């Protein structure tokens, strides 16, 4: 018989997972949204949402894909906001500031890396997400499928198309 008191609550699990993987989650968000302050905001907001409202017991292995997915959701909202702002011909002042800050950080990157990241940013959302999960986090196709809620086959085809598009954009033949 399991002593339920020995099983950490899901809230505790979420909190521990966030603290253990805080850096990884912020890096994931950074690669999606492009600037650090926004990435940290996304992770904090997701943490607040999950910590306050999570009510199911779950093992860390079950929570991790969920948390990554929630961070990606937060990134999607940010990117959509920016899309709206750009579409309206305006950019929120805070976002303009973070973009400036981001631009300063980009100086630290080589021209080649900047080109690659710029090309990546122009890919459709799902391709971008699949490539980041695969080539930054090193997730397997099955793990990416679990995070994005798609089949492993779709992960494979999406990654292949994303790489091909990236290669074309970068002027490569591979």
């Amino acid at each position, binding site marked *: 018989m399991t002593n339920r008191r020995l099983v950490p609550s899901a809230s505790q699990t979420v*909190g521990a997972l*966030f*603290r253990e993987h*805080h*850096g990884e989650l*912020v890096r994931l968000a*950074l*690669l999606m949204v492009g600037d650090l302050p926004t990435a*940290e905001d996304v992770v*904090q907001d*997701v*943490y*607040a*949402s*999950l*910590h306050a*409202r*999570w009510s199911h017991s779950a093992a860390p292995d079950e929570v991790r894909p969920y948390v990554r*997915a*929630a961070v990606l*959701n937060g990134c*999607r*909202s940010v*990117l*959509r906001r920016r899309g*709206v*702002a750009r*579409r*309206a*011909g*305006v950019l*929120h002042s805070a976002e303009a500031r973070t973009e400036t800050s981001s631009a300063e950080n980009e100086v*630290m*990157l*080589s021209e*080649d*890396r900047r080109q690659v990241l710029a090309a*990546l940013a*122009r*890919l*459709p*959302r*799902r391709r971008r997400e699949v*490539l*980041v999960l695969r*080539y*930054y986090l090193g997730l397997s196709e099955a793990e990416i499928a679990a995070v*994005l*809620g798609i089949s492993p*086959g*779709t992960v494979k*085809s*999406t990654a292949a198309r994303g790489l091909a*598009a*990236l*290669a074309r*954009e*970068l002027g*490569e033949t*591979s």
Partner: protein
Amino acid sequence: MTTTEQRLRDALSAKAAQVRDDRLRPLPGSAAAPAAPAAPAAPGAERRARRRQAWRNWLIPLAAAASVLLIVGVGFVVTRLPTHSRPVTSQPGTPSYFVRIVGTGPSNRIEVQSVSTGGVIATVRPPKPPTGGAVDYEALAAAPDDRTFYVEYEVFPANLRVPQIWIMSFSITGSGSATPLTIVKGGRISNQPGGQQTWGNLAVSPDGTKLAFTVDSSNQVGNESPGYSDEIIVIDLRTGEQEVWMGGLYRSGKQFSIPDVSWTADGRSLLFLGQWCDAVASPRCDGTSAPGGYRDAQVWSLSLAAGGGSLSDGQPLLRQSARYPVIAQALGGPDGSDLTLAVLSGQADRNGLWPQLTVEQVSADGSARSVDYRISRAQGLGGSPRQVWLTADPSGQHLLLSYAVDGGYVIGWLANGTFHRLPILQPYLPSDATIVIAW
């Protein structure tokens, strides 16, 4: 591993290395954070408190600055608006209300405003998202009764397994308040993650019994434009039955999307604008009107008699041409046979901005009937196709037009060649507002 993979991995690692664990903003309850409370406070609370305090410190100087900016801004706006736009005055037959989405992300809301006075009649908050999920808006539409409105939301559950589109409605009561949002029959659509790169569209049939809207058909592996609204769904609001129209118009290497969908006057067909753009170079179809960029657009008619099928079952009515260089938006014309187009023309500059926008009535064979409105770059026009929105009220008689000018958007309606600005206090939308509107 290919060269592309190596370069990608290297670039991602370098970018990620900008994050230093020792400099991260601490999460509540962590060792680096201030004394953790017994019950952890929401991590955003402290940040919000700091913001509130900072806000208080800046309140007085901000108020003074805002007063100055207001005075200067009003003067600026008055002098920069298109010279032939006129202050709004409602006319018989025009809708009583217009609705727009204000704010972004979780703070977005719908504001219902009076066409004649500009006063905010009601505010409608978005539906509550699933735990860890998110809700974003896609589109708005008005029903013929002048009181009911439909909203297309995109709902992301936290696990992303079943992204959904929710079609919801609300009405304005006789006392001027808004009823709660409810999902319409058949309005919960699974596995339709909406258009990330292009926005959705929503149109109510002239008799108010059906809704047509666009979604992203990204489950159509191998025959899709992922991230783009490239599929049309029609819902019968009485029964919840759905018709799906997708596929058939994809071109290799191009992103296909549907920037506009509307009903013909008899309610038996849809008109939609199909758009093809470079897949990689311009994934948002932003700069594809620039010299050298690829953008094709065609207006199609789609009979709904078959109850669903391929988009290519329809008939192309009008193609982008030298006469109509950039068809930015297309609607069914008020008499049921003509088209109403928003067309950008002239010579695009290197940024892909076109110097002239016209709204014109065009016959299905492409011959021009009349030009309802014209504005040029000299009058402040922004000139990008993605910055032009044209929609009509359910009668098809009254056009609602918005377009970018220097610094933002103006919104208004057209009558007898005159652009009547809607009575929004800020002629230029505030930076956190969107251009999702209907009436």
